[in-house]
């Protein structure tokens, strides 16, 4: 997030797109509710009538995967109505004129049939957003899990840049991070393109820095992504033959489950570290028991870049060990130098010494959770709000983006849009929530949410099991008839192992980030 | 009309909740779950909150027969006059009791649908107009009742024939500030009981920032033993309208509301007639009397049965569709009233008085009081008295003269044992303390207050502990439940007047005094502060009766 969580109580206009915040980030959503109670206006763009949409002043039930068209048309209206922040654009951005010229053709009338919403609503959303002082954008995986995920994000950046809503209280462009430490995994360099602290791998200067620190020779080339790696599993030529997985149930949470399972099965060597014998761990050659929440001392970074301490409250269950210890022990046995860590503190302090955004931090300084990175030196108070003075790379760049269809679109064979997501009461593959007493009382099974009109047209009854198939596979799922789903679109989460929705997904990947298009998957639904 | 049509009719208007609920309640006789869901959605009120608010009001039924079932007044006076028997007789028709419904000068009222029937027995219930105030036998000059007995005074023509709207016509020839000065100069003060100077209130609203401002007439006459506002509205409604118009002119408020208690359905109709007449004649609407920018629109908001809604914070919350708890003060309504905007909240009698003052002048009004006292007060007299009714007396007037000379004294062969003050809120006066004059300084010196001017008389045949119990049970029934001392205190005091609690007098007295003193000192509004005056005065005047209550003879 560019802005701190507390800023969520201060926007004038809230624009939520592709975020089911009341279910996926409920505590953050409480802040938006407070802003609304104080008079803020909220626009929610989401195909489904989620709870957030019910709280909104304007709900735009866009067709799945049509975000870019909506955002282009909003930019068009903002430009046409002279709602741009000229001063901000002149002082802090680049390529603005080209962008303004670009959006001239993309009227709400153009976007309306693509997004399947009235042009007048697009107009209203744009006027509100353009007039908000400030207007803030919130998004989640509904924006990124598309083949055009990067385009979606950049389209949102364009909106924020043209209206000067960056670097100010209550504004910003704010992705809500999904997992407790997904931000931290990036901070720590567990990505193929960056070393810790977002220092690019393909920059020889940083490759040299880490080669020296790690006493080895690290190539100054980006690594492959997980998606590519899974595609290469077992391949003779340039294939991947061994994987170390720490705490991820890849088989259930990743798209195209059958492909994923097959990939992991084709490895020579798979080692998994986890709390439970997950579907993924079952495929491993060796499984290590890790300590989890309440047993582990450590650090994690939240969605607002706040670096916080985790503390062990109970002894480790059984013989389980912290992940860092397990990884270090393997490394040591392989003769890799630099793994003589005795404590989480030593690991974290080494990270701080190599990461400019953590340079001002160490284990003892984060005791009270008051720092939000970047914290470049010990006298720095941290950075609750990004881009207040200037952008990291100088000027905010407008990007010229065009609309394109999802990887797969509905057709005669697969005439229904499936979109996937999460539910309040369960977390991911339920390895934790599924093992906590009482959660079943609230949510005991997965269902497919179907619009009442569709249910009627397809002769489906509430509670009936159906077959749902995509180009990649087929599952059985129970129908729940609800207004929440728009006509022609159905919804399910991937949380329940008994309903492996990700057998169906995986139609395409964003070319830049290789994020899978989990939000769009044409399917057909048939009675059993 | 469907729920949706009803909601659509009101949702763009101010204060839509009560009108919508009433429309549905009138249509179905009760408020169904589905209706409440529809209203919640239509008006954007969270369902649980709306449900809670609906349950707050005495008269909103949640099942049939509800609206059409008889509701029988079992107030302090009516329970002595056959109310309990009528209730019992009508049980088979689904009759339920209701607290004092403001007709203590008549036979026992029974509310059925939107009609009030009166009678001494269930068999003889009849519909008839409310009693008109009798001329006072002292021949003293009146203010509020000056023209109330004039023929057709409740019509626009009759009102105009007796100088109606002349005060307003005079006022608009001068500035709003002049009008505020006139009212201030008259020393008119709030006649609902609080006695706040009216001129000061209007001035504060005139000077407060925030628009649109509002004039709210508090016609939720819920105090037991008070029925004066009913008489004014039934027989002189245009005087109230004129008072509100004066307030509107003085403050620049374009919208007005009369918050009328539920138990006055006929008054609602006659007021509406008056409003319609006034609007047709151009006294309501835009550019009134040709004065550019003098706009005033007036609506009736019917309450739904909650004494606390006579408290101005509760009243405003009720209008806004919120749970009718009192508001914390400050801020006061003059700056943060209806919708948190500047608002005049005045009682009916106050506003009616203003209409006469505007015409006759400040000096005239001040001169109506006796001695150093200023102006008049309408007293609602009921109970064990030969001629119950509304009497307008000058401040400083002798209570004994009112009771015996004007109202004919107690029934033959009886003596007056005690009277209540301020309806029930002032507790009792008895013995030598009946020799008071009717003005706040004198009544307050006896530990009571005059308040809204309701006086109930109890003769020497009455069990005063029982009377006190019924009074406290009323307060417990009407306590809103927000502040602890009142919510628990009224309950515990009621129990102590009903045989529960300590059996020995000193322990009983200690508990009752402790509860009373914490209620008086810490309650959040007047209800909790006033309720213990009942037990306090009972202890003062009738300790023997309490002893008898605690240890009845074997």
């Amino acid at each position, binding site marked *: 997030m560019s802005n701190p969580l507390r800023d969520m109580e201060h926007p004038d206009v809230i624009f939520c797109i592709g975020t089911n915040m009341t279910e996926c980030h409920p505590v953050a959503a409480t802040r938006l509710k407070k802003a609304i109670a104080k008079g803020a206006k909220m626009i929610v763009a989401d195909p489904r009538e989620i709870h957030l949409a019910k709280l909104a002043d304007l709900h735009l039930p866009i067709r799945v995967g049509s975000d870019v068209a909506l955002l282009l048309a909003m930019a068009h209206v903002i430009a046409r109505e002279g709602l741009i922040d000229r001063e901000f654009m002149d002082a802090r951005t680049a390529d603005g004129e080209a962008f303004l010229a670009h959006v001239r053709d993309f009227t709400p009338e153009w976007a309306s049939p693509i997004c399947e919403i009235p042009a007048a609503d697009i107009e209203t959303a744009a006027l509100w957003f353009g007039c908000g002082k400030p207007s803030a954008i919130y998004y989640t995986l509904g924006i990124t899990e598309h083949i055009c995920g990067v385009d979606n994000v950049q389209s949102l950046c364009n909106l924020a840049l043209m209206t000067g809503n960056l670097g100010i209280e209550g504004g910003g462009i704010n992705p809500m991070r999904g997992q407790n430490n997904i931000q931290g995994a990036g901070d720590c360099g567990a990505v193929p393109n960056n070393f810790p602290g977002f220092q690019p791998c393909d920059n020889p200067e940083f490759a040299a820095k880490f080669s020296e620190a790690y006493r080895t020779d690290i190539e100054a080339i980006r690594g492959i992504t997980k998606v590519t790696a899974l595609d290469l599993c077992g391949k003779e030529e340039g294939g991947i033959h061994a994987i170390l997985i720490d705490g991820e149930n890849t088989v259930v949470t990743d798209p195209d489950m059958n492909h994923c399972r097959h990939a992991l099965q084709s490895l020579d060597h798979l080692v998994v570290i986890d709390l439970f014998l997950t579907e993924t761990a079952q495929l491993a*050659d060796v499984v290590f028991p890790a300590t989890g929440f309440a047993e582990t001392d450590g650090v994690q970074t939240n969605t607002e870049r706040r670096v916080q301490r985790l503390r062990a409250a109970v002894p480790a269950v059984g013989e389980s060990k912290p992940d860092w210890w397990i990884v270090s022990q393997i490394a040591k046995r392989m003769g890799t130098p630099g793994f003589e860590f005795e404590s989480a503190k030593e690991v974290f302090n080494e990270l701080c010494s190599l990461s400019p955004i953590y340079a001002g931090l160490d284990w003892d300084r984060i005791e009270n959770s008051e720092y939000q990175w970047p914290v470049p030196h010990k006298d720095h108070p941290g950075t609750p709000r990004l881009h207040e003075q200037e952008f990291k790379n100088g000027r905010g760049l407008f990007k010229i983006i065009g609309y394109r269809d999802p990887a797969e679109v509905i057709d005669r064979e697969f005439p229904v849009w499936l979109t996937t997501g999460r539910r309040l009461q369960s977390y991911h593959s339920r390895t934790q929530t599924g093992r906590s007493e009482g959660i079943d009382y609230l949510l005991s099974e997965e269902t497919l949410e179907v619009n009442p009109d569709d249910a009627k047209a397809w002769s489906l009854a509430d509670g009936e099991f159906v077959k749902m198939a995509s180009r990649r596979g087929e599952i059985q799922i129970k129908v729940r008839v609800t207004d929440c789903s728009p006509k022609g679109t159905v919804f399910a989460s991937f949380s329940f192992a008994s309903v492996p929705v990700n057998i169906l997904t995986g139609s395409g990947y964003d070319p830049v980030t290789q994020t899978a298009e989990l939000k769009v998957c044409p399917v057909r639904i048939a009675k059993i | 009309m469907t729920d949706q049509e009803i909601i659509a009719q009101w949702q763009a208007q101010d204060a839509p909740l009560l009108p919508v609920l009433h429309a549905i309640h009138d249509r179905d006789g009760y408020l169904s779950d589905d209706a409440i869901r529809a209203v919640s959605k239509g008006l954007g009120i969270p369902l649980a909150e709306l449900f809670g608010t609906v349950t707050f009001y005495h008269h909103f039924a949640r099942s049939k027969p509800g609206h059409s079932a008889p509701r029988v007044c079992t107030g302090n006076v009516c329970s002595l006059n056959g109310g309990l028997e009528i209730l019992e007789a009508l049980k088979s028709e689904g009759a339920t009791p209701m607290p004092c419904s403001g007709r203590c000068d008549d036979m026992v009222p029974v509310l059925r649908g939107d009609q009030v029937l009166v009678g001494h027995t269930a068999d003889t219930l009849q519909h008839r107009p409310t009693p008109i105030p009798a001329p006072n036998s002292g021949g003293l000059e009146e203010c509020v009742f000056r023209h109330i007995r004039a023929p057709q005074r409740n019509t626009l023509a009759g009102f105009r024939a007796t100088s109606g709207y002349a005060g307003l016509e005079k006022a608009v020839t001068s500035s709003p500030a002049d009008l505020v000065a006139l009212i201030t100069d008259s020393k008119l003060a709030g006649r609902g009981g609080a006695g706040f100077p009216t001129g000061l209130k209007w001035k504060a609203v005139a000077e407060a920032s925030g628009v649109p401002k509002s004039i709210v007439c508090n016609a939720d006459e819920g105090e037991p033993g008070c029925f004066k506002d009913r008489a004014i509205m039934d027989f002189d409604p245009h005087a109230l309208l004129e008072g509100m118009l004066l307030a509107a002119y003085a403050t620049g408020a374009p919208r007005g509301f009369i918050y009328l208690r539920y138990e006055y359905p006929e008054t609602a109709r006659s007021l509406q007639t008056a409003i319609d007449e006034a609007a047709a004649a151009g006294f309501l609407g835009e550019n009134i009397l040709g004065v550019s920018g003098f706009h005033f629109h007036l609506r009736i908001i019917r309450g739904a049965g909650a004494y606390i809604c006579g408290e101005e914070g509760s009243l405003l919350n009720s209008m806004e569709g919120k749970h009718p708890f009192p508001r914390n003060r400050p801020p006061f309504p003059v700056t943060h009233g209806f919708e948190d905007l500047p608002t005049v909240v005045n009682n009916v009698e106050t506003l009616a008085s203003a209409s006469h003052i505007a015409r006759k002048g400040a000096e005239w009004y001040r001169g109506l009081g006796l001695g150093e006292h200023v102006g008049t007060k309408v007293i609602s007299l009921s109970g064990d008295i030969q001629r119950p009714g509304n009497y307008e007396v000058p401040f400083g007037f002798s209570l004994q003269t009112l009771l015996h000379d004007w109202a004919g004294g107690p029934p033959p062969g009886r003596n007056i044992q005690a009277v209540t003050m301020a309806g029930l809120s002032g507790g009792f006066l008895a013995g030598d303390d009946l020799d008071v004059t009717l003005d706040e300084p004198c009544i307050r010196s006896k530990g009571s207050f005059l308040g809204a001017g309701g006086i109930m008389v109890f003769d020497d045949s009455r069990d005063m502990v029982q009377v006190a119990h019924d009074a406290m049970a009323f307060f417990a029934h009407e306590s809103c439940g927000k502040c602890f001392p009142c919510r628990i205190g009224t309950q515990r005091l009621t129990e102590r007047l009903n045989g529960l609690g300590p059996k020995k007098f000193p322990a009983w007295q200690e508990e009752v005094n402790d509860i009373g003193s914490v209620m008086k000192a810490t309650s959040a509004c007047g209800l909790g502060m006033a309720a213990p005056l009942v037990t306090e005065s009972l202890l003062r005047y009738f300790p023997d009766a309490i002893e008898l209550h605690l240890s009845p003879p074997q």
Partner: protein
Amino acid sequence: MHQVADNTRTCTMTLGGGSVNFREGETIYEVAERHRKEVPTLCYDPRLEAFGACRLCVVEVEGIRNPVASCTTKATEGMVVRTRTPVLDKHRTTLLELVASENRNTKVDSLSGYASQEFGNLLDRYPVRAGRFAGKKSGTSNTDDKNPFILRDYENCISCYRCVRVCAEQEGDHAINVMNRGFHTQIITEFNNDLRDSSCTFCGQCVATCPTGALGDKKALRAKDTPGEIKKTRSVCPYCGVGCSVDILTKGDRVVGIHPAMDGPANEGALCVKGQYAFDFVHHPDRLTKPLIKQPDGTFREAEWDEALQKAADGFLKVREKYGNHATYGIASGRAPHEAAYTMQKFIRATYGTNYIDNCSRA
């Protein structure tokens, strides 16, 4: 929540005999709290709009006849306030006695909830005489509500409406409200249904603010009879990226409950159903307790650490020997702490010299 802007004027008042500074807009209660006057209250929660219901916080203000509720009264320049006098103490004692008289239990287990001891503690602080003001009890417990998280023991409810207000003001769910009036008030959902059938999201905020334990944490109360002291450890919720601060409650070696951290920067006392109640996985029998090694028949056997670690390392060495550095990949977790992600990426980079590392953010 009542917030006073930083730039307001500084004023002076007399509080309990001493002169103190305050910022214009602060309430008397806020000033008194800051100066540790320990003004008692039951309906106050600093996160909520002051309500003025319990009247325990009344103070004497010179020039005003009746005591005023300090929580709803703004401090003003030159105000002279007394927070403790014999009269105030007497009123407070009487009020507490009245409140005690409507409840069945005045002592509840502290596992009931974060604020559950407030009422009991106040009873201990004042010379409350047991059994005074005996009479009817208020509130009807909703024992029919079978939800597994929130105990609704309204027989111990004192109608302070903190639960109603926190649900509306903090959580924005408006799931509960108050039915009826006076002594018959009762906290309810719409139409007095079960919580599951209302807009309740089981965030647990109502439980955390309840000062009497009328609303109790059913999960934590499972450990009521477990011997041992309750220990609190500050940590961060293991679920989404918001990063809510929590206090983990433990008895002996077991996690028994979670309290929201009122001073947590991300959540300021809020949690959701997962963070509040979904912690049983920690001690779940499915937890792996020993390393596992896959056997030729495809089943696992438990192994000692040394053997398993060596087997893991040997497997990686073998693949490197056969296929080189670009044949091994690391997938780090978005769920594990920094130390896990850091050592994972270091393992790949330092062992293989490649950047063949990723995490689950692409899922």
